[in-house]
């Protein structure tokens, strides 16, 4: 089981519903966000292209945050999801320094927090909050090991990319081009 997310850059309009849904579902403290919208403009006027992406923790296969955690608080769970055990996190911030995607932050309660792929919802068979709420159905979440899942089919049929693959972490969030 390998959980992954695919975001269709042709459908994402940058409405930030996913940002708000995540904050509501996970009680993200005010002033922090676990996911965010990035707009990239390429070219020179009038030949311009715009790519809109919803970014978050990439739940990397070879994540530096798990590798450098001195207590094992940052760990892999089912499907390769990277989670932080609040009772083991000492707040040393090594994981924050080691994430090339700058996806983590220090929660006011002291431990380190980030996107969890809404694993509490996934375990009940539901989609993560951001995927559920997306008005253009731009986001897909599923199991890469299941050939017939929507995400596997999307990655087979559409051109896609990941962010800074040269960082060497093998991310699990794909952007359909």
């Amino acid at each position, binding site marked *: 089981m390998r959980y992954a997310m695919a975001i269709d850059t042709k459908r994402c309009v940058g409405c*930030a519903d996913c940002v708000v849904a995540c904050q509501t579902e996970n009680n993200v403290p005010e002033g922090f*966000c676990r996911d965010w*919208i*990035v*707009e990239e403009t390429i070219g020179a006027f009038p030949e311009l292209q715009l790519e809109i992406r919803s970014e978050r923790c990439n739940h990397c296969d070879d994540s530096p945050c798990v590798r*450098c955690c001195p207590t094992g608080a940052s760990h892999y769970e089912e499907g390769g999801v990277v989670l932080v055990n609040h009772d083991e996190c*000492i707040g040393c911030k090594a994981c924050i*320094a080691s994430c090339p995607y700058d996806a983590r932050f220090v929660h006011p*309660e002291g431990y380190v927090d980030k996107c969890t792929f809404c694993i509490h919802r996934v375990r009940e068979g539901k989609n993560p909050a951001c995927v559920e709420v997306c008005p253009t159905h731009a986001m897909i979440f599923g199991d890469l090991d299941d050939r017939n899942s929507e995400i596997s089919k999307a990655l087979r049929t559409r051109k896609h990319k990941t962010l800074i693959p040269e960082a060497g972490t093998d991310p699990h969030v794909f952007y359909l081009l």
Partner: protein
Amino acid sequence: MNEIAITSGRMNQGVDPVLHAWTWEIPLYLYLGGLVAGILFFSAFFYLRHRENVFPAAIKIAPLFTPFMLAIGLLALFLDLTHKLYFWRLYTTIRWESPMSWGAWTLMIIFPLSIIWSAFWVKDVFPRWDWKIPFVEKSIDFLARYKAYFAWALIAFSAILGMYTGILLSAFNARPFWNTSILGPLFLVSGLSTGAAFILLISRSEQERHRFSQIDTFLIGTEIFLIIHLFMGFLASTSVHIHAAEMFLGGPYTAVFWTLVVGLGLLVPMFIEIMEMRGVKVPVVIPAVLVLFGGLMLRFIVVDAGQSSRWLYKFMEQLIF
């Protein structure tokens, strides 16, 4: 043109606009760790070469400071944690892939080692010292029979302590400025150099000062060599690394680094020490203090600059530079 913006507005405290998770506590600890590594290394090394009578400050007096320096360093580390009540979790496991875990355990070993090593020499430095508790007196006399073994252990662990602080930072490949294997040897040499400078400062023997001046000059030369290679490596690497090096070659860190660390901390003391070896009389406190200051500045600047370098969202740097 390639323009990126975070339109949902992201300003996560400590991460945006640039990472500032680590402020003064970490550089202070890295400095004290390197200094202690240097002092203990020289103390153990020259003890094994039977130089107790020739280098009394290096072998006997300097180590007395190390438990206190380590205690301050560890306190600084503890203050840096954001989930302090759980700090003990560091010692319920050892993670072989995490340099921070290696560091936690190395300190766990070297702290008692430094206390025991200092205890061996206390009576030599303070002849009227009385341990008061007979058990303590007997234990130290018992352990003192194995001084050579402690010395070998200290050589190994002080080298690990001096080197791991650099390896710790270089393991964070997400911070391009730290992502170089030169940082490990650089911090080790810097730690040894500050240790030698500290010994120079407290030594009262002409012969000892002369020898440690020579050692320090050699170490400073090595440090300059490593710093040159640090930048050569970045400039020959990827665009994020070139961008990180440019912070020091015309960017915001240029002035502080080349004047405080390289100028005042390395070149000026090296020049003074070479002049001293040629007979020019200079109070030894000047190069020693400059080297100690330079080492502290090196740690502060490297920790700060590393956090300013990143792979993504470089547009955020506009907000602070």
